[in-house]
């Protein structure tokens, strides 16, 4: 028996549960709606001009806002509620009776919960970019990639924190509520930090936020909303890299806990 077969079967089973009718259909529709409806506005705005990178930034930003929010909802549904319920009900226990390592089971669950959600998101985004604005996007592919990397790290951090919460609480419903509270708390903290930065004209708060949400640094780089802080391009890349180090660390904690300490 190959090692891959149990993993693929558990993955297939997880995908079957996470995206059963009508979840896949509804979320794909919302992704498409959020992307294409707002994409038209983005293309209109680009006509106003600016540097080519700024034009790309302005074109893509509206495409991302709603689908990223839908992505976070899907993360809540699949990780907080889905994995939480699997732990609560004992489905993970059932998976533990199969010849598959604990980390393999978690990877299968995360690939289903996050990987598939990300694939649908990127699939629709790439389609939208190629259909609606190929002339703008293709020459600035590096800017496009950086934008997606910067914008996705925060939702992935949320997903990682949700994973830790889920493993600790092991209850679908309560983890979902805790996750939503945490998400809004983080948004409020971020808003407060922005206000503080604006009031004190000190970039420190913005720089701290940029470590977990580098899209802020990217926004500053292209649009320069705050006069007192305009990061260099290399800084934006540094913030983006740092944010993924944070994301990787959070997932590493989740994996370590699941593999070595999780008692069922």
């Amino acid at each position, binding site marked *: *028996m190959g090692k891959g*077969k*149990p993993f693929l*079967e*558990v993955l*297939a*089973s*997880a995908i*079957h*549960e996470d995206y*059963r009718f009508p979840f896949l259909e509804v979320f794909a529709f919302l992704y498409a709606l959020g992307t294409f409806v707002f994409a038209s506005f983005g293309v209109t705005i680009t006509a106003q001009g600016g540097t080519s990178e700024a034009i790309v930034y302005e074109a893509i930003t509206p495409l991302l806002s709603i689908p990223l929010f839908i992505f976070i909802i899907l993360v809540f549904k699949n990780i907080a509620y889905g994995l939480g319920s699997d732990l609560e*009900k*004992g*489905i993970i*226990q*059932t998976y*533990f*009776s*199969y*010849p*598959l*390592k*604990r980390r393999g089971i978690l990877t299968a669950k995360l690939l289903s919960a996050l990987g598939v959600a990300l694939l649908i998101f990127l699939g629709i985004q790439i389609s939208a970019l190629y259909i609606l604005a190929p002339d703008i996007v293709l020459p600035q592919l590096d800017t496009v990639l950086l934008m997606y990397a910067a914008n996705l790290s925060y939702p992935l951090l949320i997903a990682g924190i949700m994973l830790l919460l889920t493993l600790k609480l092991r209850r679908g419903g309560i983890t979902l509520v805790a996750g939503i509270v945490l998400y809004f708390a983080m948004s409020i903290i971020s808003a407060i930090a922005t206000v503080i930065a604006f009031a004190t004209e000190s970039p420190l708060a913005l720089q701290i936020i940029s470590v977990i949400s580098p899209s802020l640094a990217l926004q500053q780089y292209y649009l320069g909303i705050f006069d007192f802080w305009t990061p260099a391009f290399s800084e934006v890349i540094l913030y983006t890299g740092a944010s993924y180090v944070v994301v990787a660390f959070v997932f590493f904690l989740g994996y370590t806990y699941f*593999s070595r*300490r999780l*008692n*069922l």
Partner: protein
Amino acid sequence: MSLIVAEGLAKSYGRVVAVDSLNLKLDEGSVTGLIGPNGAGKTTTIKMILGLLKPDRGVVKVFGQNPWDNTAIRSMIGVVYEKAFFPSHQKTLDYLQRVCRIFGVPESRAMEVLELVNLQEASDRDIRALSAGMLQKFAIAHALIHKPKLIVADEMTANLDPQARSELLDLVLQLHRDEKVTFLLSSHILPELSRVCDSVAIINRGKVWAFGKLSELYEKYAVGIIRVSTDSSYALEAEISKLKYVKELESDIRGISVRVVEGKEDKLYEDVPKLAKKIKAKILGIETGSASMQELYRLAISAKERK
């Protein structure tokens, strides 16, 4: 060869000690019952044996290996949990075929195991649409897919009707006889265990209080037990309790189990008919050494508590 060896196992949940210095050895080919009151530590013990819980202290070996995250031994173990849960939006046969692929056995085995537990008619039903009893049968079918050498079951017959229970116990005996499967069965329903088990481990307060072959345990704890069958159990019990050489007695609607001082069995045989005559009770039978597992369990617990 011992398939399961646990030495000095301990597990606590906060301040609550679930298992404390537990020792257990399960020989290949045995059918061992794990019995004990609620909260005795049976499920915690089983979870440590299956590698779901990490012991705070002690060692557990299954097939000579540490069960924690050990994939190699999972192919040799079938597991039935007290509350069975599976991905619920899949059809029973489809899911079992998936499990066949996981274990690398032919997919035809899925239908075979459904037939073994009389669930073939539910093969195209969603798992979530199964009743509690059917779900338990499905869990048993699921545990049998890969023809395991060892089956560990926690309250396997929970949720089953009497006929299904009986059929399942027949299946246990059949698998044990024909395929030499070793069983570790935890249950509250002691008469069921007495039907299939050759060994018993009595767990109480997180420790094994008595363990061994059933025959040895009966010899050790149930010596001097006499069963009196009568039509007036409770009235006769009151009379028998007045006899000075009676150590313990317990009655139910069908009769009385009496434990006497060693060497006084014949005296009881003489006295019981006289007492019955006095209260006009009818004696239906008197026999020695026929304690039920329930009585054995009670006797073992009380013997240990006296120590």
